[in-house]
């Protein structure tokens, strides 16, 4: 009799598990982004802090030499993967322009593929989707925000968020904060104002819009300040942090006197209202196309003996910034490579542009080059060592601009001369480099991931994925992937197995420790 009683309970539990499981699966409550589980990677940066630092420790400096391929996924596309896949309930979601894939994170097999070519808009890249409950949010090259059902990729709604005919396009991975889908825009070839917009996740309706600059045509004013990289968020302060792009006209500053706020800036906004709390100009009056859109990384800790809520950015203009993120005041500004365009740093931590280094008819030698000392590739902050690790690009170029180039769009020309890739570990308290690791001529497009076990994952200029010792920068493991990375690595754990995700060209790779044969760590297997 007892047997039947247990059998009944077992059957009931099994039945209801089976019934409820599909309801649980492919669902992301916004609160789960605030404290992401190790079995997820729920936003572009993995969490709201933008640190790209994982608490996972199964892969260690000791066993990482045994890291091996778990699976590879072929998109069969020419476009390089630039997105960081989301991982929710065992499924990876990632993109290239006009395409989204849902892939089983355990096996790498495809569940569905959204494939809708668009003619208009720049197809330079697509950085990934965002998720809210069971819905995905994806920006098209021609400036549509599309909400799709995560289960099958079917489209729920499609709204236009910018005018592609005016010269906007969209590439970024939206950021979900509660019931706000925050999106940004791109567009450098026209004198257009950048903006951030908050969209209702259920309806697609606009909740608010914050403009980086006054409207185009405002006298003595700038345009620009595009918002093409995903920002970060502090739930306690309820502040959204975002980097803004360069002013336009790009290489000529004559028609836009002054600092050109808020282009090349870090801004803090209330995500419920879009109201500006503070803004910090990273490149006042930029004339070199140095978007300040690189990740505003958030961390709490000691700064010169005082507890601080900090925001750090290694910026494209060559300077590393530490700000107090409660008020936007500077704590540190220091170059992290060759920089020759400034007259130093003012008392508030802003670099002072040297007028003699503005683009000129006969050319100016400028460091770094237009691609900058770093760029879209994400850095990582390792709290244990206090190291801010960034894929840097020491470089030189020549910049030209003459009156006949006009004051619309580019308004000049620039030519890279030389550059190389260097992974740099910056001590956030001093801005000094604790170690450097060269990754090749030309430079690397790979972002950085650190883990609690003391590992740094990134890629070199030639197509190898690298595992470095976070303390020393020494290589512990590498594998050739066939083409350079243009994305930032991520990691997650499923079934007590830690995976590292990297991409190369149009192929997504999952790496893990071998199932058998090697005893990696005590808690394993």
């Amino acid at each position, binding site marked *: 009799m007892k047997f039947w009683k247990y059998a009944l309970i077992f059957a009931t539990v099994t039945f209801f598990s089976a019934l409820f499981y599909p309801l649980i699966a492919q669902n992301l409550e916004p609160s789960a982004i605030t404290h992401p589980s190790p079995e997820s990677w729920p936003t572009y940066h993995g969490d709201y802090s933008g640190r790209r630092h994982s608490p996972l420790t199964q892969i260690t400096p000791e066993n990482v030499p045994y890291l091996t391929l778990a699976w590879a996924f072929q998109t069969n596309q020419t476009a390089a993967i630039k997105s960081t896949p989301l991982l929710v309930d065992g499924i990876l979601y990632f993109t290239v322009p006009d395409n989204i894939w849902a892939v089983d994170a355990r096996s790498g097999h495809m569940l569905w593929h959204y494939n809708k070519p668009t*003619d208009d808009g720049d197809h330079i890249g697509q950085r990934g989707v965002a998720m809210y409950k069971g819905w995905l949010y994806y920006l098209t090259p021609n400036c549509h925000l599309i909400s799709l059902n995560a289960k099958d990729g079917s489209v729920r709604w499609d709204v236009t968020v910018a005018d592609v005919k005016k010269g906007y396009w969209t590439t970024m991975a939206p950021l979900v904060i509660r019931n706000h889908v925050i999106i940004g825009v791109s567009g450098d070839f026209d004198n257009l104002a950048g903006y951030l917009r908050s969209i209702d996740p259920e309806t697609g309706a606009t909740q608010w819009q914050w403009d980086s600059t006054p409207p185009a045509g405002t006298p003595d004013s700038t345009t620009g300040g595009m918002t093409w990289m995903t920002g970060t968020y502090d739930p306690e302060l309820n502040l959204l942090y975002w980097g803004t792009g360069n002013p336009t006209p790009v290489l000529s500053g004559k028609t836009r006197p002054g600092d050109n706020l808020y282009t090349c800036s870090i801004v803090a906004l209330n995500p419920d209202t879009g109201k500006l709390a503070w803004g910090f100009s990273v490149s006042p009056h930029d004339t070199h196309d140095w978007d300040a859109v690189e990740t505003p990384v958030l961390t709490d800790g000691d700064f010169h003996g005082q507890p601080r809520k900090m925001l750090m950015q290694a910026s494209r203009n060559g300077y590393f910034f530490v700000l107090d993120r409660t008020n936007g005041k500077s704590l540190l500004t220091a170059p992290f490579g060759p920089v020759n365009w400034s007259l130093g740093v003012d008392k508030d931590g802003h670099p002072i542009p040297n007028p003699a280094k503005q683009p000129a*008819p006969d050319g100016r030698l400028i460091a770094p080059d*237009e691609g900058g000392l770093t760029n879209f590739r994400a850095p990582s902050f390792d709290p244990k060592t206090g190291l801010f690790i960034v894929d840097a690009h020491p470089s030189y170029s*020549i910049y030209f601009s003459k009156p006949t180039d006009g*004051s619309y769009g580019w308004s000049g020309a620039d*030519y890279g001369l030389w550059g190389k890739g260097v992974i740099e570990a910056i001590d956030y308290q001093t801005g000094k480099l604790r170690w450097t690791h060269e990754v090749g001529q*030309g430079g690397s497009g790979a972002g950085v991931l650190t883990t609690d076990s003391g590992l740094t994952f990134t890629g070199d200029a030639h197509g190898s994925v690298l595992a470095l010792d976070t303390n020393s920068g020494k290589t512990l493991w590498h594998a050739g992937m066939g083409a350079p990375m243009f994305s930032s690595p991520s990691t997650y754990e499923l079934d007590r197995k830690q995976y590292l995700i990297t991409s190369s060209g149009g192929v997504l790779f999952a790496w893990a420790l071998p199932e058998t044969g090697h005893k990696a760590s005590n808690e394993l297997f």
Partner: protein
Amino acid sequence: MIKRIQTIALLAVVLGLFTAFIDVGWCQATPAAQQHGNAVGAESYAKHCAICHGEQREGILPGFPPLLEVNRQLTPQQIENLIHTGKGRMPGFSKLSEEETTALIRFLATDELTAKAADGSTNVAEAGHHLFQRNCAFCHGRDAAGGETGPDLTRSKLVLSDANGAKVTDVVRNGRPDKKMPAFNFTNEEIHSIVVFIHRQATSSRPGGRRGVDVSDLQTGNAEAGKQYFNGVGGCAKCHSATGDLAGIASRFEGLQLEEEMLYPRNAKSKVTVRMATGQTMTGQLAYRDEFTIGLRDIDGVYHSWPVSRIRYTIDSPVDAHVELFSKYTDDDIHNLMAYLQTLR
């Protein structure tokens, strides 16, 4: 014999299908073609001839002959007869009106460039325009006049000297890894359309959009000061000589290209000597180098590579001296050096 009849029948069917297709497809070309002088002739060509003889009259070899400069081989009367009665597998077009036939013959007598402008290539350029926007515009600019990191193609010597697109095709297909240009998979027609688009951009005027560097922009330096820098603090004379390797440099390069070569010669070669565990050494041109592998080409052009953990190597890379100068130059130094190098003709 039966096989031959089948082939002819098949060809007839295919031609019939194509003709029907073209009838629809080229209606849209009409408005654009009308902007040009001989719209009737161009339209007639597109409608009846282009499917076999090519949109640009380039022919589809080996089956269909090109018609460019056909007027050098045949008289207008011969051409007219051919059009009306056909020849071999070319069908006769007996129902063409006299007016259309005359226009078509006149069109066939136009030179290549005129043909490109008139025969509907506005649409080819538009197709190229779309492809360009999607794939090329971010680096080379929406107007092909340069953008993020990519050069101005409307001023590119390679593009301008490449009427049929062969050189561009080579670059597009293979990329330029040294300059970070990726390789693309396009069909010949797609690349052709992009070339047509770029050529159109090069000849159309766009207020405010034009950008680039002219030779005249780079004439602000002082040649005497440049010579002093060359022989003095610049240290250029340690490796280079105005009468040796740089003799006539200004005849080989000019303007921006000369300045880029001066600041960092991208194609400079390095020498590597590898010492193997056996004690044996090999020297050659450095062909590959990353953190894990070193590769060289020996004197016979044969490639060899080693894991760097198994060997020792030394690299002689004279071009590094150019990198060291970057942090030392003033802009005046560069302009003066340019002025001096431009005297070496």
